[in-house]
C-alpha cells in the first residue's frame, strides 16, 4: 500500500480513508506494508507494517502541500534530486527509491500494489515493473478536482495520466470521479471500479461528549431559536465557499435566525471574510480557523445543517461525520458522497437560490429537519469499511488472474 499520510499526521480525508481501508483489509486477513513519506509514530496502526521512506517529520512534509499541487515545479522525476527533501519532487524520488529497496529486501511476493493518488503513482508504476504484481490505482482526487477550475498543474496531470494508463485496475471513490477519469483522461471505463468510501462509526464513538462551552456563543444563539449552518473544510476555491456565503446572505434575507460556522483555514479565507462584509452578514458568519480535537467534533455537534458546497468533490467524508453528529445534510450535486445517501438535499454548486431555499426550508420546518436528521443517520451507518475492503480484495484477485 503506497500512501502519503495516515492519521494523526494527516491534513485531510486521504489519510483517514487509507487508515480505515487498511484496517478493514487487515481484519480480513491481508498483510500490508504501508509506505509513507515521513517518519512518525502511528500508535493505533499496529495491524500493518508502516515504512518511513524519509526521515522528514510529518510537519516538514505538510510544508510540501499534499493538496496544493501548485507548489510542484515542472521537474521530471529523473531530474529531481532525491537528497533535496525541501522539494516535493525530491521527496517523491526518494519515495520511489525506498519502495525499490523495500521490494528487493523482501523474500515473498506481493499480490497487489495499491497506490493512492498522484503522489505515489510513480512509485506504484516502478513497483509493478519490478514485481510484476498488478497495480491498483486508487483515485481519491484528481488534479482536476484539486484545481477547482482548470486542468491544474500539467506535470501532475501527466503523472496521473501515466498512472491511470499503466494501472491494471482503477478504483474511483465515486461515479463523479469515474466520469472525470473517463472524460478528462480518456481511460477505458471498464477498467474503473467505483468503490465509495465509508465511515468507521466505532472510531467516532470514542467516549466523546460534546462540551457545550466550546461554541458557547453559538449555543446561546440556538437557545434563541437560531439554526446553525456549518461546514468543516479547507477554505479553498475547490470547496465552492463563495457560493455558500452568497447563499447565506440570500437565506438571511428570507429568514433572520441563521448563523453560519466555517471551520477550517485556507488561502480563500480573507476573500470570504470580505465577501461576508460586502453582503452585510459579517455578524452571522463565524470563522473558527483550523480546528482539531474537541473544537473539531464540537463544530459538528453545534451544527444543525451541514453544507458541502464543493465545486468538485470526489467523495466528501466530512458529510458522513456530520451525519453521525445528527446534522441535516445539504450537498452539492458535484460531490460524490451524495451518490450513497438518499435523505439529503442536493443542489448545483453554483445555484445559490436553490441552496438558500433549502436552508430556509429546513430551518423553518421542524418536521423536515427532524426527518432529514433521522433518516440520514440510518443511511450513513450502512456504509462500512468492511464492504470496501471486500471489494478491494475482489479487485486484487481478479486483476491477478488477468495479469497471470
Amino acid at each position: 500500500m503506497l500512501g502519503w499520510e495516515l492519521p494523526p499526521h494527516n491534513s485531510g480525508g486521504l489519510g483517514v480513508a487509507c487508515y480505515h481501508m487498511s484496517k478493514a483489509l487487515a481484519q480480513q486477513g491481508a498483510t500490508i506494508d504501508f509506505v509513507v513519506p515521513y517518519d512518525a509514530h502511528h500508535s493505533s496502526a499496529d495491524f500493518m507494517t508502516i515504512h518511513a521512506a524519509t526521515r522528514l517529520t510529518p510537519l516538514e512534509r505538510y510544508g510540501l502541500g499534499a493538496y496544493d499541487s501548485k507548489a510542484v515545479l515542472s521537474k521530471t522525476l529523473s531530474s529531481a534530486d532525491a537528497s533535496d527533501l525541501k522539494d516535493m519532487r525530491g521527496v517523491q524520488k526518494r519515495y520511489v527509491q525506498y519502495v525499490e529497496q523495500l521490494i528487493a529486501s523482501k523474500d515473498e511476493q506481493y499480490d497487489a500494489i495499491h497506490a493512492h493518488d498522484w503522489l505515489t503513482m510513480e512509485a506504484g508504476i516502478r513497483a509493478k515493473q519490478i514485481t510484476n504484481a498488478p497495480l491498483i490505482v486508487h483515485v481519491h482526487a484528481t488534479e482536476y478536482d484539486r484545481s477547482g477550475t482548470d486542468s491544474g498543474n500539467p506535470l501532475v496531470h501527466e503523472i496521473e495520466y501515466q498512472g491511470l494508463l499503466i494501472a491494471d485496475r482503477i478504483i474511483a471513490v465515486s461515479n463523479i470521479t469515474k466520469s472525470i477519469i473517463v472524460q478528462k483522461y480518456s481511460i477505458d471505463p471498464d477498467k474503473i471500479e467505483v468503490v465509495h468510501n465509508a465511515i468507521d462509526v466505532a472510531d467516532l464513538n470514542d467516549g466523546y461528549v460534546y462540551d457545550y462551552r466550546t461554541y458557547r456563543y453559538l449555543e446561546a444563539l440556538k437557545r434563541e431559536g437560531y439554526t446553525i449552518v456549518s461546514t468543516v473544510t479547507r477554505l479553498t476555491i475547490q470547496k465552492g465557499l463563495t457560493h455558500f456565503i452568497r447563499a447565506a446572505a440570500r437565506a438571511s434575507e428570507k429568514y433572520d435566525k441563521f448563523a453560519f460556522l466555517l471551520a477550517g483555514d485556507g488561502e480563500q479565507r480573507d476573500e470570504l471574510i470580505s465577501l461576508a462584509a460586502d453582503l452585510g452578514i459579517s455578524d452571522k458568519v463565524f470563522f473558527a480557523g483550523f480546528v482539531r480535537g474537541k473544537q473539531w467534533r464540537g463544530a459538528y455537534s453545534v451544527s444543525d445543517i451541514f453544507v458541502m458546497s464543493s465545486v468538485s468533490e470526489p467523495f466528501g467524508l466530512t458529510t458522513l461525520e456530520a451525519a453521525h453528529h445528527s446534522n441535516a445534510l445539504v450537498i452539492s450535486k458535484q460531490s460524490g458522497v451524495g451518490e450513497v445517501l438518499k435523505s439529503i438535499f442536493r443542489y448545483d454548486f453554483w445555484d445559490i437560490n436553490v441552496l438558500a431555499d433549502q436552508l430556509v426550508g429546513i430551518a423553518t420546518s421542524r418536521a423536515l429537519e427532524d426527518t432529514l436528521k433521522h433518516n440520514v443517520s440510518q443511511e450513513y451507518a450502512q456504509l462500512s469499511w468492511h464492504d470496501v475492503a471486500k471489494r478491494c480484495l475482489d479487485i486484487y484477485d481478479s486483476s491477478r488472474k488477468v495479469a497471470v
Partner: protein
Amino acid sequence: MSKRGITLYLHVHQPFRIRQYSVFDTAVNHDYFDELSYDTDRNNEKVLRKVAEKSYRPMNALLQKMLDTHPDFRVSLSITGTVMEQLERWAPDVLDSFKSLVNTGCVEIVAETYYHSLAFFYSKEEFVLQVEAHKNKVREVFGIETRVFRNTELAYNDELASWADNYGFKGILAEGWDPVLEWRSPNHVYKPHGTRDIALLLKNYRLSDDLAFRFSNRQWADWPLTVDKYMDWVNTSIADQPLLNLFMDYETFGEHQWADTGIFDFFEGFVGAWLSRPENTFYTVSEAIDAYEPVGEINMPHTVTWADTERDLTAWLGNSLQHEALKNLYALESDILRTADNDLIADWRKLQTSDHVYYMCTKWFTDGDVHAYFSPYESPYDAFLYFMNAVRDVRWRLHEYHKTGGLHG
C-alpha cells in the same frame, strides 16, 4: 501688537488593543484587551512601557527643561482617556510628569473624546458623553478645564464646528488642507462657517510633517534637517503672518523618530533659536485665539482629517469590514447604556477607539505602502475577526447579565 508665535500642539494616545480573541473565547472569556504573551505589540502593557521609555519620559523631561529655561515657551497637549488609564496602571510617574508640565501654567490641555473614537459620525449622544468623560478626567487628573476641542484624527467639518460652538468651546483644531484653503494661509486664526463665537486653528501640515514624518527619512532630499534649515523654512512661511501651527502626534518624539535620529536635540535647538529673536514667542491654543482676531471664514462641508494624501476617513471607514465592525458595535448603544454596568460600558467604549478599525484598513494593498499602516495583527482580516468576536461577547454579556436586548442585536 501681539508677537508672532508658534502654536505647538502634541497628541498623546494609546488604544487598548484586542488580543487574538477567537470564536472559542466568545461568551467564555471577557478579557479582550489582556494579551497574555509579552512578545507581541498586541500587549498593551508592553507597548505602553516601551513608548514611555522611548518617548514620554525623555520628551516630558525636555519639555520641562524648555519651560524652566524659556519663560515664553508654551505647548498644548491632548491626552486621551485610554492612555491616561494605561499610564495610571503601568507608568504613573509619566502621568505625574504631565501634571508637573501643566502646573507651570504654560501648558494647555486640549479636549477630545475620551476613547479617541469616531462617535461623532455614528452617535451624537455617545459623542457628547465621551467629550464630557474626557473633560471630567482632565479635571480630575490635572485640575483644569479644557476650552479648545480637537476631534479624533482631526476629523473636522462645519457640523462639528457648529456643535463645538454651541457647546461652548472657544476654539477647534483642523487640518490646513490646500483644496479647502485655496490661496489662503494656515498661519492665521479663522472662523468656521456658520458659527458665532468659536475660532479655528489650522495645522501647517508642511512644516508639521517635516518633523512628524520626514525628519529621519534618508531618502528625503532635505535630509538631514538642521535647525538652521528649518528656521529658514519657518521664517519664510510665517513672513508677515502671525502664527505657525505645528500639530503632530506626541510620539513623534522618541517613538516615530527615535532618539538616535537627533529629534530631541533638534527640538531643543529649534525652541532656543526661535525664542532668540525678541519678536518671536510660543502660544498655547487658547492664547493664540486670544491674541488674534479671525481673518476670514473657512467652509468645510465635507470631513477633512490629518491622515494620508487624501485627508479623509478612508483609513478608518474605507472598506466594508470597517463599516460592518462599527455598525454592529454602535447598534448596541441604547441597550448597553441602559444597563448602567460600568465595566460593560467601558469595554464597549474601548472598542470604539478608532485604532481598531484602522487595523482593518486594506488601502495599503493598493498603495503598496505597508509601512504607513502599522498594525499589531497579521492582517486586516485577523483584526476584523478578533474585533467581531469581542463585539459578540459584549452582546452576550448584555444578554446574559442584564436580560436586555438579544443576541440578534
